[in-house]
């Protein structure tokens, strides 16, 4: 308790704010980007995409709340969400690139998670962008945490 109170007394640096702000920017861009794919381009999100969305969308709100005023405990709230999302993204990437076979399941009209339906510049795929976003958010969160203690 006293520890966290002491931490609150430290003057928030602009760098820390900027790090969390960048996290927000990535989450917001990911949210709008995924909405562009589904709502504008009409690509149906597969089940794994939905799980990644579920953990990306709330980050936009959580980071925003943590920025005004800067609240260092945003690390505690955002990190678990980002890590779960990251796990789904990695799993999706492995399914996508064929390392993990998609479970044998009856054919349905649902969208296959293993099907590649968008490739930009020949190699950037949606799961790859998701992994990169989650990884960047997690790294930035840890960097901001280190700055707090140093």
């Amino acid at each position, binding site marked *: 308790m006293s520890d966290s109170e002491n931490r609150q007394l430290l003057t928030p640096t602009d760098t820390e704010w900027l790090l969390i*702000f960048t996290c927000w920017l990535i989450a*917001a861009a990911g949210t709008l980007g995924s909405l562009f794919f589904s709502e504008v381009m009409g690509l149906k999100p597969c089940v794994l995409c939905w799980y990644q969305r579920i953990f990306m969308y709330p980050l936009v709100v959580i980071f925003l709340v943590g920025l005004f005023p800067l609240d260092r405990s945003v690390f505690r709230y955002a990190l678990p969400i980002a890590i779960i999302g990251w796990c789904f993204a990695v799993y999706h990437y492995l399914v996508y690139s064929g390392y993990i076979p998609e479970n044998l399941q009856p054919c349905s009209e649902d969208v296959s998670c293993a099907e590649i339906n968008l490739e930009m510049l020949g190699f950037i795929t949606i799961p790859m962008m998701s992994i990169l976003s989650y990884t960047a958010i997690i790294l930035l969160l840890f960097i901001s945490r280190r700055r707090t203690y140093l």
Partner: protein
Amino acid sequence: MKKLSFLSAAIILLVSIFAVATYFYNKQKANDANANAQKNDSILERSHSPTIGDKNAKVTIVEFFDPACETCKAFSPFLKQAMAAHPGKIRLVMRYLPLHQGSDEVVKILQAAHQQNKFWEVLDDAYVSQSSWAIHHVAQPQLFWKMLADTQLDIEKTKLDARSTAIAQQIQQDISDARQLNVTKTPGFFVNGKPLINFGYQPLKELIETEIRNKY
């Protein structure tokens, strides 16, 4: 550091990127849809397609429909109104696109009714009683037959025709034409060969009225 203005700038930037990308994507899609429709103009109608309205009308609406589709049902009175508002100027051609489970059987019955010149009556009845035979987006042909008992249709003949290969081929033709015309949802509209790009009553109304202005 003015954090709030920083945030506002980022939000404005993100939203404008989204808006601009959406604008250009939709524009490109509209161009592609128009070009594709133009290229496939000859397959918009088939001789087996049920048609209503003046033969010499200069505006032809082609509708790809599914009798179990609720939006198709909702558009039916709208189309009747449009035709009544411009008597003799609009011709409506119906094409089958059975996307709902079980609809493939129902459209065969409709086409069999068309052979007895009863397509429009049966379609109206089908729409009116839609909720009684299309349950949770699944068309139930046996319930549809029950509904038909009240119509003037020759049921025995309809049953025979609905099973014929001729009708099966006609339906198949409609489905493959829809695929080539890039119609993936019902209702899919074309007015004088121009696809309806932004879906809705108002855009369709505008498309029809523009064509009427151009042709009359």
